[in-house]
């Protein structure tokens, strides 16, 4: 037998609705807190090409990057450039990892490892004989600062064309390392081939000094500073992600702007 429905008084209705809604709110709050604890305490990723981030956060980072890259990356999107005179006179210096001290150009050659096993050895004079490209743009550090700077060197795509590295440029990544292997970056090919990416040897019209990557460094305006490797020793090409100093320390591998 079903009991006849008794009309609740207003007081009872208030009590009942308050009880139910606060109960649900409590469940939601506990669930949200639990989810946060789970995320915060989640295990670190297995150290590999990337390391140092919580496993779920690394996955999210990769997926988000890929989403925005597919949505927006376009080699026709150029980094904003500025009049030459707006460039800073004193260029900010942040890190010396892999490029401390001096390395005079005569004691250096760029080692380019081709996919046929051959290694090209290229001197600075040879590079300086190639068409020179200059850029004045806002250099952006992952820390949050930015500075308008003037750089000059060989456009990466010109370099590829001149040394007939077309087969190499069909691979997905370029790997760059300092001569002492202390600092290393991996760059996706579309960003490397971006028309504003330079193998730079001049800063404010003078050859690079010791603490700015003497004698040759990467200037890649579509990436954060961490990818702008100073003092390039070797260049490799691959279809897998080359090792990357800051990606091993919890930063995003792509780090594109």
């Amino acid at each position, binding site marked *: 037998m079903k009991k006849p429905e008794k009309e609740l008084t*207003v*007081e009872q*209705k*208030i009590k009942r*609705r*308050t009880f139910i*809604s*606060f109960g649900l*709110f409590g469940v*939601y709050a506990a669930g*949200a807190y639990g989810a*946060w604890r789970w995320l915060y305490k989640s295990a670190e990723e297995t150290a590999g090409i990337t390391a*140092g*981030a*919580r496993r779920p*956060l*690394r996955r*999210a*980072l990769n997926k*988000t990057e890929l989403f*925005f890259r597919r949505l*927006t*990356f*376009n080699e026709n*999107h*150029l*980094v*904003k450039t500025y009049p030459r005179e707006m460039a800073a006179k004193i260029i900010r210096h942040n890190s010396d990892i892999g490029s401390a001290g001096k390395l005079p150009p005569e004691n250096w050659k760029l080692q380019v490892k081709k996919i046929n096993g051959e290694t090209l050895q290229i001197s600075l004079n040879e590079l300086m004989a190639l068409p020179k490209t200059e850029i004045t743009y*806002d250099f*952006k*550090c*992952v*820390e*949050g*600062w*930015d500075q308008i700077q003037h750089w000059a060197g060989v456009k990466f795509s010109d370099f590829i064309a001149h040394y007939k590295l077309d087969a190499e440029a069909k691979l997905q990544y370029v790997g760059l390392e300092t001569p002492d292997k202390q600092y290393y970056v991996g760059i996706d090919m579309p960003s490397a081939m971006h028309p504003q990416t330079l193998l730079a040897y001049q800063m404010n019209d003078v050859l690079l000094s010791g603490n700015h990557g003497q004698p040759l460094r990467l200037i890649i*305006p*579509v990436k954060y500073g961490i990818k702008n490797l100073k003092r390039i020793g070797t260049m490799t090409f691959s279809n897998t992600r080359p090792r990357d100093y*800051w990606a091993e*320390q*919890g*930063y*995003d591998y792509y780090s*594109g*702007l």
Partner: protein
Amino acid sequence: MKVIKEKHPLIMRWTHWINFPVLTIMIWSGMLIYWANDVYSVTIFGHTFVRFFPEWFYKTLHIPQRLAEGMAFHFLFMWFFTLNGFFYVLYSIISGEWRYLLPNKHSFKEAWQVLLHDLHIRKTAPPQGKYNAAQRVAYTAIIVMGLGSVITGLAIYKPVQFYWLAWICGGYHLARIWHFVLTIGYVFFFLVHIVQVILAGWNNFRAVISGFEVVEEQPKPAIETNSDDEKA
């Protein structure tokens, strides 16, 4: 006689309570990021009034040396912040709730009167609907600020690909400043909001969880059935 009066729709309550922890995480992870280049301060005529942030502040909250971690959290929770805000706005538009929220032509003048009333300078407050004029201005402003955070955030995140957003913000450098100022704005909003909620009392607070308010109503004579009146 006590009467139950529906006040806040379910979706409004959900988005509000989702936003609260999500925005908290966004502000916290934002501080982890900001620490790496903490150059902002309020300096007038060479005198620094506030430095963002003092050492004790960082130490208490364990902020230093966590930039990568901060970015990882920030770039995940930005999705929840944005989508939640998007659903709230969409709902407000479709349901017509925006009518109670958007300031009208009287709101700005009245908001001033509400402020004076709340500060006990003025005795009477202007008549109000679901929200008073000050609330209309504040709750609309906070949505505009949210949109501002998304736009300035995207401009900092991808200043090259979203060059047009960076342009709208006055460039990359300025976008980062706007992004920071908006965050300070949220903290101020939160402080005032909390004080107002406490002052408004239990009935008002309950409504944001249960959806209804209890109001005292004089029983209207019309309720007493008058057999003569067929039109009732």
